[in-house]
C-alpha cells in the first residue's frame, strides 16, 4: 500500500550535513582561510562585492568560501545579508577624478597626460598554464614580490580624458553630479520597485548590480550589429577613491574610508540630429574593485540604452530597457530558473488530465471519420 512521503525535515537536515562535508572536501588538505580567498582570489571577491552591492572584502571572501566558489550563490549570500543592515544615508558622490590610478589606459590617444599605466592586467599575458604556480613554493613568491615594480610616485591625480575633450564640446558633458551635490534624489533599486520607463541613474544602478556574463553578452551583441554604437575605450581606470558622508548631526562631510573602483568611459560616435550638432557621446561603467570586463560591458549597454535619447532606432535587444533591466539580475534569474526543481506535480497533473482528455477526443474524432 502506498504511503505518502514524510520526513521532509529529516531529508533537508541530512542534505545540509552533506553540503557542509562536501564543502570541506578532503580533510587531509588544509582548509582555505577567508584571508587566503580575500588576498589570492581578488577578482572573485571584487565581482561578489560589485554584484552584491556591498563593499566588504572579508564578507565577500567568506561568502565565496561558504558558497564553495559559486559566485552567484556568494552574491546571493551577500545581498541577503546587506538587506538586514541599517542605512545611515547616501554618501556624497565619489570623485573618480581624484583617483591615483593603479591602472589607467586610454585607447583613443597614443599618449595621455599622466601617461598610460598598465597596472595588474592579464592583457598581454600569454595564456599558457603556468605550472610553476602548482609548486606552491614560498621562495618563488618572495621572488615575485622582490621583482614587483615600485608604486608610481605620488603626483597630482591624472585628469579624465573625456573631461579634456568635453571642454571642446566634442564629447557630451558628463551627467555626473557636480562636486558637493548631495544624492538625495538618487533612486534606490533595493528600496523601491523598478518601474518603467527608468531614468539613467536607475539604469546604471541596475547595470552595476547586473550579472557580468549577461552584460558581457549584451555589450558584445551591440558590437556585432544589434544596436551598434561605434564604441572606443576612452578611458579605463582602476584605483582607490575616498568616500565621504555628511552626518546629520555634524552637517559637514566626513571621509569614512576608501573604496577601490574600476571606471570605464566609453566614447561613441554620434552623427548628430536636426537639433544637435555631431559630437561624441558616452557610455559609463563603474564597479567595485577590479572588474574591468564588467565595467566595459556596462558602459556599452549604458550607451545602447540611451538610443532613444539620441533619436536613434532602438530595436536591438541591448537597447530595450525593459528587456535588459528585467533580466540583468543573476540572483533573480537563478532563483526563478532553479525553482523549476521545486515540486510542480499538481500543475503537471492538471496538464496530464487535460492532454489525456484531448487525446481521447482526437481518437474519437478519428474513429468517427473512419466510419
Amino acid at each position, binding site marked *: 500500500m502506498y504511503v505518502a512521503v514524510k520526513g521532509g525535515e529529516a531529508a533537508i537536515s541530512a542534505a545540509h550535513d552533506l553540503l557542509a562535508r562536501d564543502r570541506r572536501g578532503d580533510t587531509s588538505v588544509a582548509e582555505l582561510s577567508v584571508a587566503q580567498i580575500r588576498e589570492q582570489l581578488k577578482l572573485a571577491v571584487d565581482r561578489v562585492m560589485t554584484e552584491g552591492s556591498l563593499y566588504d572584502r572579508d564578507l565577500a571572501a567568506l561568502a565565496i568560501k561558504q558558497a564553495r566558489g559559486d559566485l552567484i550563490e556568494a552574491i546571493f549570500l551577500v545581498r541577503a545579508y546587506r538587506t538586514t543592515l541599517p542605512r545611515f544615508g547616501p554618501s556624497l558622490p565619489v570623485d573618480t577624478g581624484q583617483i591615483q590610478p593603479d591602472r589607467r589606459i586610454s585607447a583613443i590617444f597614443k599618449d595621455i597626460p599622466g601617461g598610460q599605466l598598465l597596472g595588474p592586467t592579464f592583457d598581454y599575458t600569454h595564456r599558457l598554464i603556468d605550472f610553476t604556480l602548482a609548486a606552491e613554493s614560498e621562495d618563488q613568491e618572495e621572488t615575485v614580490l622582490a621583482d614587483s615594480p615600485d608604486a608610481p610616485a605620488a603626483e597630482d591625480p591624472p585628469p579624465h580624458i573625456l573631461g579634456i575633450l568635453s571642454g571642446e564640446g566634442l564629447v557630451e558633458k558628463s551627467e555626473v553630479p557636480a562636486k558637493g551635490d548631495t544624492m538625495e534624489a538618487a533612486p534606490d533599486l533595493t528600496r523601491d520597485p523598478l518601474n518603467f520607463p527608468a531614468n539613467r541613474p536607475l539604469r546604471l544602478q541596475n547595470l552595476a548590480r547586473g550579472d557580468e556574463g549577461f552584460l558581457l553578452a549584451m555589450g558584445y551583441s551591440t558590437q556585432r550589429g544589434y544596436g551598434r554604437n561605434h564604441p572606443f575605450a576612452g578611458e579605463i581606470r582602476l584605483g582607490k577613491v575616498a568616500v565621504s558622508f555628511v552626518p546629520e548631526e555634524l552637517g559637514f562631510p566626513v571621509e569614512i574610508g576608501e573604496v577601490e573602483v574600476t571606471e570605464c568611459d566609453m566614447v561613441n560616435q554620434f552623427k548628430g540630429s536636426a537639433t544637435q550638432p555631431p559630437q561624441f557621446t558616452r557610455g559609463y561603467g563603474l564597479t567595485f574593485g577590479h572588474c574591468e570586463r564588467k565595467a566595459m560591458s556596462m558602459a556599452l549597454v549604458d550607451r545602447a540604452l540611451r538610443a532613444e535619447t539620441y533619436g536613434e532606432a532602438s530595436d536591438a535587444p541591448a537597447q530595450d530597457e525593459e528587456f535588459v533591466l528585467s533580466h540583468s539580475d543573476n540572483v533573480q534569474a537563478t532563483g526563478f530558473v532553479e525553482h523549476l526543481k521545486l515540486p510542480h506535480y499538481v500543475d503537471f497533473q492538471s496538464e496530464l488530465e487535460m492532454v489525456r482528455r*484531448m487525446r481521447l477526443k482526437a481518437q474519437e474524432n478519428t474513429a468517427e471519420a473512419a466510419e
Partner: protein
Amino acid sequence: MTMAASQETLVDEGYNFAYLDEQTKRMIRRALLKAIAIPGYQVPFASREMPMPYGWGTGGVQVTAAILSPDDRLKVIDQGSDDTTNAVSIRKFFQKTADVATTERTEDATIIQTRHRIPETPLSEDQILVYQVPIPEPLRFLEPRETETRQMHAMSDYGVMHVKLYEDIARHGRIVTSYDYPVLVNGRYVTAPSPTPKFDNPKMDSCPALQLFGAGREKRIYAIPPHTTVKSLDFEDHPFEVQRWDQACALCGAEHAFLDEVLVNDQGERMFVCSDSDFCAQRRAAQNGDTSELEARDDR
C-alpha cells in the same frame, strides 16, 4: 548540527520578529491595504532580498512576515501538502524567526501560506490565505512588456486574453489552460490565481477568507477581499469547467478532491491520492473511528 544551532538563535542575533525590519513591514503593509482596496490589481512593492531564492516563495514569505502576529497559528503547504520540502523549509523559517505556533490542520490555522493549491476544507472568515506567486501578470505570456500590460489593465483592455482563449477553442475545441487559469476579480481586473489547478478556481469566488498574493521577484502584491466575486474567464458556449477524475482517492475515498497521480512501480502502475495531505489524513482518521468529524466534513 551546526546549521540548526546557528539558525535557532536568529532572533538573538538581532533579527527582528518575523525577520523583516519594521520599515519594510510598513511598506508591505501599505501595499497590502491598497491591494485589498483595489481587488485583483497588482500593487508594486519594494520586495526585499530574502534569505531564500527568488522563485521559492519570497513574495509569500514577505506577506506572511508582514502580517504575522505572535497570536497566529501558521500552516504552510506546497502542492497541497504540509510535508513537501519547501513547505517544511518555510514553516521552519517562521518557527525560527517568529517562534510562531504551526499546525497542519486547515481549520486550526489563522494564516495559511500556500504554493499551487487551495485547501479542500472550506476556509472561514477568520482565516487568511497567502499565495506564493511566480508570475503575477496574467497577460505576461501574451504581452511580455510591463509598460503594455499596465496600460491594458488601466483601460480594461483584455482583448488579447479573449482572443487567446477563443483561439484555444477554435484549435482544440476547449480552453487549454489547466492551471493559473485567469479570473476576473470584482468584475474589473483580470488576475492570475497563481499556478493553482483550475480545479481550485471556484473556491476563490466569494470566499469568506481574505486572499493575499505575494510575488517577490516580480515585486507585486495583490489581494481578493472576502465575499468578492471571482469569475473564471470563459464563453457562454464554452463554460468554464474543472478537472475531474474517473476514480476516487485510493487512501480516503474522496470523490471531489484534487488527486495526485502516483507511479507505484517500474511497470508504470499508478494510483490516485488526495493532493491535500491534511484533508486526506483527517478523512482517514475519521474512517478509523472518529465519525463525528467525517459527518461534519460531508456537510459541505
